[in-house]
């Protein structure tokens, strides 16, 4: 049972529940204290030591049921069999064919199979094999154990991708000696023997069982791995290349990254101004000590939370990136409470209110719809200056996301410079590769002179790094 618990914890880890070795030890102690008899009690107890958040607890409960169900049902089944012996045993068999329900596989004395075995030595030896015995006698316990040990030999736990399911099913079947059964079926087919149907049924039951087993193990061991693999790929793909079907996954991923960043940067900002004594407080505290001022208190200033203005180009070429930047920024509400966002293509407008009124995805859709079009940086910058230049101060970070392709219009660099001088920092994120900055109608190189920092930003990894940096620099 202990090794079972350890492998269960392994499963939890692949499902993104972080469990440290110390917690594993705790889980062991919990299991010993509570005993294995009451399953619900054990589950609650383990949940308390292993899961740290309500979300993790949900994952834990799902995994626990999936993992321990199959094992414990091994022991439940024989009883069930005793109860239902008269009305013909377990569910898989019913699924295999109702027409055979009236045939009792246990007392197969008069079945065609025994008759066939009488004339055919091969079939006789097959019938005597452990595998066939457990199938014929409906000994699900032995069968499950056989599947389990076969799975162990072929290393099913190493399963990584869902495409491997078929391959592993085959391997397990081979390891269990299904080949003999298969060849017997072929032989009977050739002879057109009446025993064929029954033998086929056993074969199908076996295959079904193994398939189910592999499926369960896959869900336990590999689903997490597949997801991690997928997340990894997605975070490195150019955002506008991601296929539509994966978008919701990307959203999840962005939220996950945002949570990570938020917890990293959520510490309170406070700064002690050295050299300025808080006289009032020092004296007040001194009263308790006969007016002797033991403790000195220094004036503190609380640093203002940063203000962030995000200006996003939502014209066709860059819209996908703007979407994810906004998604990121708005997922960081906890650490970046003052985000104002602006969208532009030919003209610019503030879109913050959309994000207040609608969920992020919906808001982004509305923004794209309202402001999409051909790009004009000049007039958009003019609009921006009119709307927000007065609010830019030494506490403001301006993030501009765009490819700086201005369709050969007037770039209005002087406005950018105005922003540059007032703001604490100006970041320009460009989804284009650095090599093509300045080529064709790109004004990027000219705008660069009015930016504190510029970066290429076209996949989630880069985006995460930039936002991380942003959080660090705005502290």
């Amino acid at each position: 049972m202990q090794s079972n618990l350890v492998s269960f914890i392994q499963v939890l880890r692949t499902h993104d529940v972080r469990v440290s070795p110390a917690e594993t030890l705790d889980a062991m102690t919990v299991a010993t204290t509570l005993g294995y008899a009451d399953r619900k009690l054990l589950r609650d107890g383990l949940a308390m030591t292993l899961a740290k958040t309500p979300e993790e607890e949900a994952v834990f409960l799902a995994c626990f049921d999936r993992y321990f169900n199959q094992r414990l049902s091994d022991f439940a089944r024989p009883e069930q069999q005793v109860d239902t012996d008269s009305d013909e045993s377990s569910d898989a068999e019913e699924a295999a064919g109702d027409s055979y329900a009236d045939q009792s596989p246990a007392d197969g004395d008069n079945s065609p199979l025994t008759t066939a075995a009488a004339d055919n030595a091969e079939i006789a030896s097959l019938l005597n094999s452990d595998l066939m015995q457990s199938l014929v006698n409906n000994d699900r316990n032995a069968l499950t154990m056989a599947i389990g040990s076969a799975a162990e030999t072929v290393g099913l736990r190493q399963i990584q991708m869902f495409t491997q399911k078929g391959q592993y099913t085959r391997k397990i079947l081979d390891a269990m000696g299904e080949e003999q059964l298969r060849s017997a079926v072929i032989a009977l087919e050739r002879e057109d023997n009446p025993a064929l149907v029954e033998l086929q049924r056993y074969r199908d039951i076996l295959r079904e069982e193994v398939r189910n087993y592999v499926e369960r193990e896959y869900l336990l061991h590999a689903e997490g791995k597949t997801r991690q693999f997928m997340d990894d790929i997605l975070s490195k793909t150019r955002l506008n290349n991601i296929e539509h079907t994966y978008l919701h996954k990307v959203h999840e991923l962005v939220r996950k990254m945002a949570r990570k960043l938020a917890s990293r940067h959520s510490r309170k900002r406070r700064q002690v101004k050295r050299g300025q004594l808080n006289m009032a407080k020092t004296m007040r505290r001194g009263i308790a000590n006969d007016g002797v001022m033991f403790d000195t208190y220094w004036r503190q200033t609380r640093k203002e939370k940063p203000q962030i203005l995000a200006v996003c180009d939502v014209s066709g070429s860059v819209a996908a990136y703007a979407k994810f930047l906004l998604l990121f920024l708005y997922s960081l509400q906890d650490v970046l409470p003052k985000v104002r966002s602006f969208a532009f293509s030919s003209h610019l407008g503030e879109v913050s209110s959309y994000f207040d009124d609608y969920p992020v995805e919906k808001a982004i859709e509305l923004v794209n719809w309202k402001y999409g079009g051909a790009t004009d940086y000049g007039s958009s910058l003019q609009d921006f200056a009119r709307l927000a230049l007065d609010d830019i101060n030494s506490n403001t970070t301006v993030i501009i996301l765009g490819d700086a392709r201005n369709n050969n219009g007037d770039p209005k660099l002087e406005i950018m410079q105005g922003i540059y001088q007032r703001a604490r920092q100006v970041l320009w994120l460009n989804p284009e590769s650095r090599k093509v900055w300045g080529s064709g109608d790109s004004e990027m190189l000219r705008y660069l002179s009015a930016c504190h920092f510029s970066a290429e930003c076209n996949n989630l990894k880069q985006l995460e790094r930039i936002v991380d940096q942003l959080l660090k620099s705005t502290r």
Partner: protein
Amino acid sequence: MQIDDFPQLASVQQIEQGFESFGYICSTKIATAVFLAFQLRKPILVEGPPGVGKTELAKTTAELLDLPLIRLQCYEGLDEAKALYEWKYGKQLLYTQVLKEKLGDLLKGAKGLAESVERLHQFGDIFYSEDFLEPRPLLKAMQQERGAILLIDEIDKSDYEFESLLLEILSDYQISIPEIGTIKARTSPMVFLTSNNTRDISDALKRRCLHLYIPFPTVELEERIVLSRVPDVDALLRHQLVQFVHSLRQLDLKKSPAISETIDWARSLLLLHSGQLDEELVRSTLNVLLKFEDDIEAADAELRALLNQN
């Protein structure tokens, strides 16, 4: 703490029954957490929406075990002087003043500075000893002879740094005081930490605790809670009011009514001598359940539909 010291905690069922006798109706999960916390000597981190009985759990455990409850309310800026210990500066000052004269006698006959210092050394650190230590809640909990229930309330309100301060106490039940050394708990206290989840607690702290999430209770459980807290409410009204509160929780509210609000509401309905819920009554007492004007308006609009559900 040994098992035989507290037969009340010998099994999960016993804890459940014990709590019930003190009017705290809890789910098996909660009882399991208390049982494990006692067996493994681990603190419990209790999370959940406000008003589901997180603080009450600690209080009831203290009553059940007949141990003192020592409570530390966390807030922004809480530091070790208020949570752990402080030196009694006044007393130290006074003593130095008084003992000044004694010094003369003591050093009488000493030849030269070296010998005087030598003599002074014989007295050790009188002023930095436990006599001059003012224990604050955490240290106090360590000093209890029979053990104590330590409730660290709303840990999420405290600063990040304060969490690190707790780590030593929570894992080893000891406190290090630079001037004295390490003080170990006489009997390790049972620790409850509560959090409203206004911010994430650090992993290091979480790792040291059992994690208990108390959600809003099921209808049956809540009815039993109301029964035990406000026994005079008759069965029909009790059922109706719990049902109504449950349907309120389905709405998108700023703050959903918790158990404490349900109990308050049951009490107020009792005072109004009402036998069953009707629209007028609910409308006039809605402010007991909901604490935000927006919420009350939202619920008001849905009132008829909600009442018809029951």
